[in-house]
């Protein structure tokens, strides 16, 4: 999804600085999804399909309202419906718009071995550049939210771009533009937090005492945030992780251990070199051959 990018703060598998002369002077962006206002109409899914020219295969009913049943290379966002029975015995229909969270500390980018296949812009958007993607699926391994999907056809990774192409020219994401209830809003991250705070106050005054903002610190915060009625139990919302962070396994796999491993290989080779120079080869001389001949004759 590349535009000319002079505002890249992080680039996968790259050890030198990326072009970043342009900064996000207006502040980082965020999309705020107010789950309490969502009516599950899926207009955002349609807007996403239209703007991004995506058409998923027509599936079949799997017994719930989720349609399609899961994210895919053609479905970058998806309403997930959960039925929740409150302590008072009321039924609540919790509808969460799933998709990339645009983590400040993205596990996908950390895991990616292909230079420039995943970038993070100064405004906070995490974008896949499919032309650099090699299809290994390491981003799937790295993501704490189970978001990236590898296409069965081209074996590239796809996910929500937060409409980086629209945002780059000053438009809001397609899903935001279309939402009929105003459940999805877009702006600077600071503004969105403030807006969320007002919403949460309102919800609390109406009896949702655990209403709160989902902006998980474990991944440095996210550029897609939720207002939840039950912020104390994010798992209620189709298993939204309570404390997402990049898995310790991924940290071990991608951290300092890599350069150390390369050092170990180089050191092993160097030790061999030193041995050869210092102690030298182990050679068979004439005496050894003569001794061998003697023993052969004795045996015969």
């Amino acid at each position, binding site marked *: 999804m590349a535009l000319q990018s002079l505002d890249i703060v992080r680039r996968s*598998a*790259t*050890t030198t600085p990326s072009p970043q002369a342009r900064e996000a002077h207006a502040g980082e962006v965020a999309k705020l999804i107010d789950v309490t206002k969502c009516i599950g109409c899926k207009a955002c899914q349609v807007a996403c399909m239209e703007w991004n020219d995506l058409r998923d295969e027509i599936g079949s009913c799997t017994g719930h309202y989720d349609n399609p049943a899961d994210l895919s290379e053609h479905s970058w966002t998806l309403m997930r419906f959960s039925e929740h029975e409150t302590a008072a015995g009321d039924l609540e229909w919790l509808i969460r718009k799933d998709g990339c969270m645009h983590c400040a500390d993205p596990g996908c980018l950390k895991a990616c*071995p*292909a*230079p420039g296949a995943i970038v993070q812009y100064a405004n906070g958007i995490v974008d896949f550049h499919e032309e*650099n993607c*090699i*299809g*290994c*699926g*390491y981003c*799937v*391994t790295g993501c704490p939210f*189970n978001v990236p999907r*590898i296409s069965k056809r081209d*074996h590239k990774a796809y996910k929500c771009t937060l409409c980086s192409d629209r945002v780059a020219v000053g438009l809001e994401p397609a899903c935001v533009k279309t939402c009929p209830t105003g459940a999805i809003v877009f702006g600077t991250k600071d503004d969105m937090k403030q807006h969320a705070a007002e919403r949460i106050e309102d919800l609390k005054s109406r009896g949702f005492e655990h209403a709160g903002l989902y902006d998980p610190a474990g991944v440095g915060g996210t550029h897609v945030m939720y207002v939840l009625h039950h912020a104390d139990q994010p798992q209620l919302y189709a298993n939204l992780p309570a404390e997402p962070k990049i*898995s310790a*396994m*991924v940290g*071990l*796999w991608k951290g300092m*251990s*890599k*350069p150390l*491993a*390369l050092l*170990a*290989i180089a050191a*092993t*080779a160097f030790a*061999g070199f030193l*041995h*050869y120079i210092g*102690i*030298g*080869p*182990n*050679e*068979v*001389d004439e005496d*050894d*051959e*003569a*001794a*061998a*001949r003697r*023993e*052969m004759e004795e*045996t015969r």
Partner: protein
Amino acid sequence: MSARKPPEIVRYRTSTRINHWIVAISFVLLALSGLALFHPSLFWLGNLFGGGTWTRILHPFIGVFMAVAFALLAFAVGGANRMERRDWQWLRGWRDVVGNHEQDLPEVGRYNAGQKLLYFLIVLCLLALLLSGIVIWRAYFSLLFPIGLVRLAAVVHAVAATVLICAIVVHVYAAIWVKGSVRAMTRGTVSPGWAWKHHHAWFRDVLRGGGRE
């Protein structure tokens, strides 16, 4: 000097030699393609395979191919690689080993303790690489496994690859260090003096008509 050049001693059959080099070439291809994905500083190695995408596609297929070839090799030489009491003694004299003072060490059979331990290390690493490699093979298998296992397998694969590459560096260096060894894998033969000096117990076996693969 003499017309009576001593007869060469056969160490490896042709089929074993061919298999060894199939395994060796596969290993080099696997190490290069794997390292390309291992660290950004080595991504350029992927160009040897036609770019990153081809590297990603080819690596696991070469891996499975190598695993099969190596299994045959491992069975062929496995019997002679069992550790014996004198091997532990040999290991305790490692200073004499690296210092080229073999005369002070216990007798060695077809393989010395270093070679035997290396054998087990390589078998273990390749087993770990094969199993973890299948789990992280996104195009066909990863979806069959829970994400926690895929993450673990990624670590196991990287660790086992590092250990194996170090082990093979040692293996290759040993062949350069102990002169006369390479011919065992190219021509299949060693000189009697080589066998007498480095693998005396095996040398005696051969004289008595044993010691074959």
